[in-house]
């Protein structure tokens, strides 16, 4: 079924599906996950970060399908549940693209579906992904990512103000901010000499009005990724569906995401793995994603580089890679910030885990959990690019050894929240190059990883 046809079908189901109160739906998510975790015997060992058990991954896939057939996706605007049968889900999954061109001209890159332990390198979306940045630093900051040869595509930071004014969702300032984001990104791409590089937007548009205003041939292009998040867990509403409808009609690359919260409705690692997998199936079938994205989140540190979240992510994404041809992406959200080795260690462990688990694109690093203004820089995206290339094709056993060794270096730091230094203190701004100190930490850490056996070219 083509996207335009399926869109009408999804809208219709959201208008006519079974009525349900939101609290009842939440309860249904929890009970449904508990049921399938038990029925499909989803048990994770406490120690391994990277899943080594193919049969377990396949059971997670079956559990996720079973769960989603019963649970569905909740439309908050109508109080109805969008349901699909197992056959409909499977047909929808078979319609999903296996590859997609991102960007245009000589800056275009091909993203493709990857297998577990695939030798092909995932696309590197080097980016702070919506982390807050003062207006005056936006262009040099984004240039610091775009100019990196190992960065393939990008995604902007979030402007903290527009023309000095605080941005307010649902107001004209949100629409101005959406246009400002487009205008400044165009300047940053041009200055870095990569005008056709694809980028994901819009970061500042929470409302449909904001997003729709700047998604057009003069704004966010059809060669760019049009993103929106579904509400945790497994919920949508007319604002989200309005964004989706417009992007499909525009012919843009639909790039939605779902970020299940660890310890939330899915509970621990087993439920979280099934929930992530189910959410990616929903993102593909209900939201017609070209690429299905996630950044599973820790409830207290707000990162995804802790052991439990990585365990669940590895299992879920292996389940998807082994049982479908979906293109998937994960976002690195480290606790550490620029100028700290913690950030680099977190980036390395997460990148190795993601790459061998079959993702097609890596996003980030969204350093310092993406919550601290200006605490991110292009150098860490160079680092993730290096690690992506080094870990593509690694066997999971070897990847696990490396991930464990690296994890031990940063795990004790996570609760300390080492947010590091802001961009302007780790980069020479006129030259848009990392300071000697930040570059030295980078080189030292990379040397360590090479010494431990990571095959960095």
């Amino acid at each position, binding site marked *: 079924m083509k996207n335009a046809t399926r869109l009408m079908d999804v809208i219709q189901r959201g208008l006519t599906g079974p009525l349900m109160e939101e609290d009842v739906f939440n309860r249904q998510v*929890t009970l449904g996950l508990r049921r399938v975790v038990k029925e499909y015997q989803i048990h994770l060992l406490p120690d391994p970060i990277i899943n080594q058990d193919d049969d377990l991954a396949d059971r997670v896939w079956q559990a996720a399908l079973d769960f989603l057939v019963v649970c569905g996706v909740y439309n908050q605007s109508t109080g109805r549940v969008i349901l699909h049968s197992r056959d409909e889900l499977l047909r929808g999954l078979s319609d999903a693209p296996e590859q997609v061109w991102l960007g245009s001209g000589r800056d275009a890159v091909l993203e493709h579906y990857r297998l577990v332990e695939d030798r092909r390198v995932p696309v590197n979306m080097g980016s702070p992904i919506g982390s807050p940045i003062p207006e005056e630093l936006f262009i040099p900051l984004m240039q610091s990512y775009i100019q990196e040869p190992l960065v393939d595509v990008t995604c902007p930071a*979030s402007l903290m103000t527009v023309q000095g004014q*605080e941005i*307010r*969702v649902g107001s004209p300032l949100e629409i101005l901010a959406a246009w400002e984001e487009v205008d400044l990104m165009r300047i940053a791409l041009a200055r870095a000499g990569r005008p056709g590089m694809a980028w994901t937007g819009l970061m500042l548009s929470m409302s449909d009005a904001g997003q729709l205003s700047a998604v057009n041939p003069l704004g966010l292009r059809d060669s760019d990724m049009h993103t929106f998040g579904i509400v*945790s867990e497994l919920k949508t509403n007319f604002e989200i569906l309005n964004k989706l409808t417009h992007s499909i009609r525009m012919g843009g690359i639909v790039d939605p995401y779902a970020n299940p919260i660890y310890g939330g*409705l899915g509970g621990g690692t087993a439920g979280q793995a099934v929930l992530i997998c189910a959410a990616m199936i929903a993102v593909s079938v209900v939201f017609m994603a070209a690429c299905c994205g996630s950044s599973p989140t820790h*409830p*207290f540190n707000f990162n995804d580089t802790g052991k439990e979240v990585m365990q669940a992510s590895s299992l879920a994404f292996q389940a998807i890679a082994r049982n479908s041809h979906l293109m998937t992406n994960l976002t690195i959200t480290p606790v550490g910030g620029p100028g700290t080795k913690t950030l680099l260690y977190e980036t390395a462990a997460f990148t190795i885990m993601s790459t061998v688990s079959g993702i097609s694109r890596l996003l980030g690093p969204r350093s310092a959990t993406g*919550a601290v203004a200006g605490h991110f820089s292009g150098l860490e995206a160079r680092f993730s690019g290096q690690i992506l290339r080094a870990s593509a094709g690694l066997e999971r056993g070897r990847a696990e050894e490396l991930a464990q060794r690296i994890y031990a270096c940063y795990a004790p730091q996570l609760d300390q929240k080492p947010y590091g230094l802001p961009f302007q203190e780790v980069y020479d701004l006129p030259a848009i190059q990392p300071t000697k100190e930040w570059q030295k930490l980078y080189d030292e850490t990379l040397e360590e990883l090479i010494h431990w056996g990571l095959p960095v070219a």
Partner: protein
Amino acid sequence: MDNLYTALIEAIRTGDPEAGAAEAERLAQSGVSPLEIFRECIEPCLKDVGDQFSRLEIFLPEMMEAAEVVKAVQVVLKPYLKAGEQAQVAKGRIVLCTIQGDLHDIGKNIVKAMLEVNGFEVKDLGVNISPTEAIRAAKEFEAQLIAISALMLPSLPYVRDAIEMVKQNEDYRRRFKIMVGGGPVSRDWAKKAQADGYGDDAIEAVKQAASLLGV
């Protein structure tokens, strides 16, 4: 904890409201004071539940279920409370919401469950709540604390509006404390915006609420 409460503790731990209510009724009928039940059983048991969640040994659903058991127990024990005792078991009333323009609710739900298992009475207004709606609800619920969550930068101005509305009105300022949290909210931001409290996660939110309400 006394063996007297084994069945009630089990009901809270397994999230069984019917068993919890039945056992509370049995205890009250057998002459155990409701205040003793709260102080000797429910409060320490719920503190333990909250502590387990803060270490992620249990998860949101288990915590919500424990809170549901306690609500059922409160209903059953209410007729047994003597005049003035109700106030002694209540830690305070809180309205909680995600601010206008923001639809994120899991973080808020975690805060809600943590507050409830720590003995606060919470009215959850949901998501996308305007400052005026939050204040109206606080008046109706006779809350002492308004707790607001925001996860997206462009929704922060509405949080500041809510703080301003409380601080600029003498009656509201006297009646309500206001506490904020969520991804883009920092301690500095909260201080500048003149919020009374700030919690950077659910654990801190409980500490702040207790401090602001003097319990």
